[in-house]
């Protein structure tokens, strides 16, 4: 199993090589399709994969190795504040480790912007709250993660995926 170490500043990793490999693997597994799962909470059967900025390569390797018997959609989940570079690096690591699994972005945790970037680094699916018409993201609603179906589709299309609602059966990790 190959894995990409998190970027720590001390030992700069190359995000582009693994990024290219992860994106190619996602397309190899699911073609042009990118998936959106409307849900207010993580659906049953989805498995969170925690990651922490600055943790060692060994820790990440061990965590992913422990998942090798799981055949469920995997949801990389930051334990603390999600860093941008570290997050996309971990998504790429998950895809490379599990080429055929659904690697899922939790939009509630990562937000739309960082979440969408993960689609260029190995993720193939988004999960998040859908509304028919969202309110303006101003004032108290500034941080709202809700989005419409059109917005979800746009996030997927802008990353080169053809949007599909719901997850087809994964092929297993």
């Amino acid at each position: 199993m190959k894995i990409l170490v998190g970027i720590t500043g001390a030992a700069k990793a190359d995000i582009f090589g693994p990024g290219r490999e992860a994106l190619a693997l996602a397309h190899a597994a699911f073609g042009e399709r990118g998936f959106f799962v409307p849900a207010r909470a993580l659906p049953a059967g989805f498995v969170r994969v925690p990651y922490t900025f600055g943790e060692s390569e060994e820790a990440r390797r061990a965590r992913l190795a422990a998942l090798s018997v799981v055949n469920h959609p995997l949801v990389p989940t930051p334990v603390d504040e999600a860093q941008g570079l570290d997050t996309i690096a971990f998504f790429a690591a998950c895809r490379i480790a599990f080429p055929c699994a659904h690697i899922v972005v939790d939009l509630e945790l990562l937000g739309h912007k960082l979440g969408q970037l993960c689609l260029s680094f190995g993720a193939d699916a988004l999960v998040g709250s859908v509304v028919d018409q969202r309110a303006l993201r101003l004032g108290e609603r500034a941080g709202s993660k809700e989005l419409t179906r059109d917005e979800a589709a746009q996030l997927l299309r802008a990353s080169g995926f053809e949007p599909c609602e719901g997850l087809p059966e994964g092929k297993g990790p």
Partner: protein
Amino acid sequence: MSLAAIASKIREGTPLSQADGLALFQHPNLVEVGTLANQVREQLHGDRTYWNRNLHINPTNVCVSACKLCSFSRRSAHDAGAFVLGIDEAVGKLRARLAAGDRVTEVHIVGGLHDGLPFAYFTGLLLALKAVAPGIAIKAFSAVEIFFFHRLYGMSIEEVLRRLQSAGLDSLPGGGAEILSPRVRQAICPNKCAADEWLEVHRTAHRLGMKSNCTMLFGTVETLAERAEHLRRLRDLQAETGGFLAFIPLPFHPENNALGDKPAPTAAESLRTLAVARLLLDNVPHIKAYWVSLGLATAQTGLWFGADDFDGTVSEEKIYHQAGAQTPQALAPGEIARIIRAAGRVPVERDTFYGLASPVAGEAAV
């Protein structure tokens, strides 16, 4: 042209064409484009990532321009939420930062096109700020404002700039460029200065020895070809004057304005725009990932997609926050350094002109 052919031109030092720029915008693989941009970024700047201690002041939000893209302006001084800062009030913001021990090196001033203020208000503001902090750099008044002053006060562009320069203006910010296309400007900001007029203000400023920045607001009604043309026009002026310090791509924020039915550009579009700019603007030294507008995670990631500047501490940004920006109002220097380091880059404090304010010996600044 293929990406391989474009990469070959970059290796040979051949400037890319507008058509190359369009090909980069259209290339299906963002990571491939980012890889190229990162190579150029690291050749130019290594891991260095610049930031500064700056203060934003918006003198007024009263604006006659009524641009559809804007969430900040009020049409009249009597409208709810309209404001004009008194000079003492504006200077007070700087005094407060200095009194708190903050070593601000730059004041960034942009505001609405208010047709009821005398020119002396603006020169007075500059003089008062310089009186409080003589060594501070004032980066003020977008080309749109300068052109408005030229029309409103009946002075040539050069005269406006000379008088502001005499009062303390050091450089121009890059705002108001939007997209340098008559079609797009007619659609989103028909009352602003024209594209050629925006360029002429910067050309004049550069001739007077002033440096400036340049921007591109993307994600409204423009085509990818118009984005490529915009970048090419900026590069052409830079080839003529050499006066641009940095290019700053600004994703459109749709909240609270007349274009609100447009979706905001995605983070992938923002990263691609940074990357294409780094590749096409080979004669502009710096590409800025403006965290206020991009969001912190996207701006941080942008440091691998061509950007070498993160902008500054800011404090009290109004224009993007009234358009729905979800970023903080300010960042502490330590927080900026932490974000840059977390991207595997080296934070380097700069002044307005990219002189270094923090040491880089051992590449361990800040």
